[in-house]
């Protein structure tokens, strides 16, 4: 934990900064000399919220993670107020999950502190400089090559290609014609109607989606298909209408 000097309206106020809501809770527990296994939730919740308010007053951005924890504390507090079910075999302490998380986080925080010490010491240890042998280009130990390197290599190649061929990527792109998509959708519907739109769109790339969308609008406009959506954000169904279309005319709708 570090102390950040925050200057507001002429006077200096020192507010400790924390590395997340769990860090803040641990701080409060320590400060109040509270038994972590018997946290007075109401008191800690008040102090936690007071800290968030202080942050707000200082116009510090409060991350969603802190707000989520505040809600969780209130939830636990409300559960603590409920009368205990005496008949239940084992009464689950509403605080149990939070205590577990705090204990776990505290351990990793301690590991991080020991890593921090090592980090400082080991930063001062320098190896021999890398030398290329027989003028060979740089190599990577295969056991150290990860997906990250693979993606990075692919990106490097594509970026270089793009620089060398300003137009070529555009040319190589598979063009999806609106008419093709109209035909594909229409033929699918001939086999089976209605179909789920989501199913038809699955696995398509962006260009295809655009072509499908345009084609679908044309088909609707021509009265060949209909779209139904049962509820807001619900599944969209695509169905044939009783109005047959002339597929040979689809090409008219291709735009360049």
């Amino acid at each position: 934990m570090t102390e950040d000097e925050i200057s507001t309206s002429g006077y200096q106020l020192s507010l400790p900064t924390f590395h997340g809501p769990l860090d803040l809770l641990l701080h409060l527990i320590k400060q109040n000399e509270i038994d972590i296994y018997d946290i007075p939730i109401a008191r800690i919740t008040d102090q936690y919220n007071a800290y968030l308010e202080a942050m707000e007053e200082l116009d510090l951005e409060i991350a969603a993670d802190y707000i989520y924890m505040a809600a969780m504390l209130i939830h636990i507090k409300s559960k603590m107020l409920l009368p205990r079910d005496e008949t239940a075999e084992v009464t689950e302490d509403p605080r149990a999950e939070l205590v577990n998380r705090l204990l776990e986080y505290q351990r990793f925080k301690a590991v991080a502190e020991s890593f921090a010490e090592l980090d400082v010491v080991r930063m001062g240890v320098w190896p021999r400089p890398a030398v290329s042998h027989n003028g060979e280009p740089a190599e990577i130990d295969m056991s150290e090559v990860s997906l990250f390197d693979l993606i990075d290599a692919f990106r490097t190649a594509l970026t270089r290609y793009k620089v060398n061929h300003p137009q070529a990527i555009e040319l190589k792109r598979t063009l999806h014609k609106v008419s093709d998509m109209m035909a594909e959708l229409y033929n699918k519907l001939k086999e089976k109607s209605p179909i789920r739109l989501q199913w038809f769109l699955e696995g398509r790339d962006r260009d295809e989606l655009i072509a499908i969308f345009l084609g679908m609008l044309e088909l609707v406009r021509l009265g060949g298909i209909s779209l139904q959506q049962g509820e807001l954000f619900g599944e969209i169904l695509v169905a044939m209408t009783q109005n047959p279309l002339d597929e040979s005319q689809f090409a008219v709708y291709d735009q360049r």
Partner: protein
Amino acid sequence: MNELRAALEAILFVSNEPVTLDSLAEALGEKPDAVAKELEEIKNFLDVNVGGFTLEHTGGGWRLATRPEHEDVLKKYFARKGESRLSIAALETLAIVAYRQPITAPEINDIRGVNSSAVLHTLLERRLLRVAGRKEVVGSPFLYRTTREFLIHFGLNDIRDLPRLEEFGDLIGEPMSDDVVAAIGVQSAAVDDQTE
């Protein structure tokens, strides 16, 4: 002069990353035991007689490296700032991955209580973490592991050289009373099954 030892010194000298016992033994046509013995002797000799660098057993191999006390001299001579120190967020994330690998970003976020994606990116870039496949759960999140670079950076030879997680954390508060133990369902047992 001992020929094996001289050859080992030559190879170590030109290598900037740890060299494994096996690769040394293979290249020199010697038994690994004999090579290991010589390496120990080189290390002892350097520790006693040479102030500027030492032989360390790290990242699963051996490498020559300077000693921490010369950091200032080196920085000054090479007018280099050196790498910046790792942030607390980065160290926490490393700690979690070190003990729980392979682990996904959502799992890390859950333990830290905050979003860790920016930190993960920094650690990937510094090669202290690597992506090691995907977890077969909804969303197929990437799995992260520590790298050899991580071991070297922290002077570890093997991930198993880390102290047990239980040895960390002066746990705040009183020892658990029995009914709390029952309520919480002691979880610490789940903590130590960290094996690569």
